[in-house]
């Protein structure tokens, strides 16, 4: 069966570092269900 069904989308705080400094944004990424 497909693994997709064992994954789910979660909101993640993602760190981004550019020349202007480091900051975080909230994005979606799928992850294996715990």
């Amino acid at each position: 069966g497909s693994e997709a069904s064992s994954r789910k989308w979660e909101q993640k705080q993602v760190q981004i570092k550019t020349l202007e400094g480091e900051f975080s944004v909230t994005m979606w990424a799928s992850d294996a269900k715990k």
Partner: protein
Amino acid sequence: AKSKAVIPVESFDWGRYICSNNLVGAPVSCFKHVPMGTCWGDISEGVRVEVINSDTALSTKVYWIAGIVKIAGFQALLRYEGFDSDSSKDFWYNLCVPEVHPVGWCASSGKPLVPPKTIQHKYSNWKAFLVKRLTGAKTLPPDFATKVHENLQYPFKKLMRVEVVDKTHLCRTRVALVEQVTGGRLRLVYEESQDGTDDFWCHMHSPLIHCIGWSRSIGHRFKRSDVSKKVEGQMDASPQLFQKVKDVDQSGEWFKDGMKLEAIDPLNLSAICVATVRKVLADGYLMIGIDGSEAADGSDWFCYHSCSPSIFPVGFCEINSIELTPPRGYTKLPLNWFDYLRDTGSIAAPVKLFNQDVPNHGFQQGMKLEAVDLMEPRLVCVATVTRIVHRLLRIHFDGWEDEYDQWVDCRSPDLYPVGWCQLTGYQLQPPAAQSARE
């Protein structure tokens, strides 16, 4: 049987081919046997990644965030953040190569994120721009690269011994050794081959390879190797490595010798032919012969499992407007099954004995893919799905005449998404240019 000559490979560019002809690549999720085939659903247009920034004057390697504009198999058309609707700097990238990361990877890896040179002055505050663009957007799973790496590991190893169909006598098997594994495709060398050139190519999930002892266990013909000296390091491939077939109950109504059916001709995959069950073996396997082209000794019989998607009940072609190849020498054409069954004093195999599953495969007419030329199984070629009949696909090899087309099952391990050759390092045969063909 028709087989194509190998074409010298110039650098074939899937991205340009897809864009210039506004084509669609079959989704990776159509191919359960390929790396990431069972967990590709999260990859879609709009997903953001961190990739190398090739639009820079800096000497050091820098990265930037890009969004997926279009997907074709493993290939994605990416656009750096900041270009908005400007497609001039779009570029195609194989999503499964190491240099594709989820957003956040640069910060955690200490890699510099630098905007492309072309637009570096477009925004005075990139931070505000990126927060606005990325908040609520999707990115790759954190374990994406790990999963790709896991999926590119194959259980078959060099020097493993298998039983495989004898390509010169389809009715029997021989022992062969795994000589090479590329993307799950095996190059097998028959054990007796002195110079290592007598080989056979197939995918590790092919129904044509089996564990040592399989032929004896089901009553299939087998050519014993007269090899006296064993190569060091040889080992029999574990039975667990081979594709499992469905258990069948042969005690009830079952196939019988002489029953008629329709079958894809393994020596000419563009044809579905009138065929006969010649011998019922154990575990649901059948020896089948194509009517009109059978050697007296049965040496051209071939083995299909009763659940094989390559055999069909009488009438399948007519119902689906597929040309049925009549027995060579049978003059009452077009063939009428009732007449033929009466003329041959035979009966049709019961419909209920055939595999009637139709997976939700996802293929659509016109989709592009990489397909094995099953008449020359070394070759993986640029191809198109030109027709779909339930789970049966008509595969056309771009640039070649239709007579090279092949009927292939939607779950065949010999079909691959766009970009599979690049990912696995397998040589891709480009569309045949007119000159090369001639």
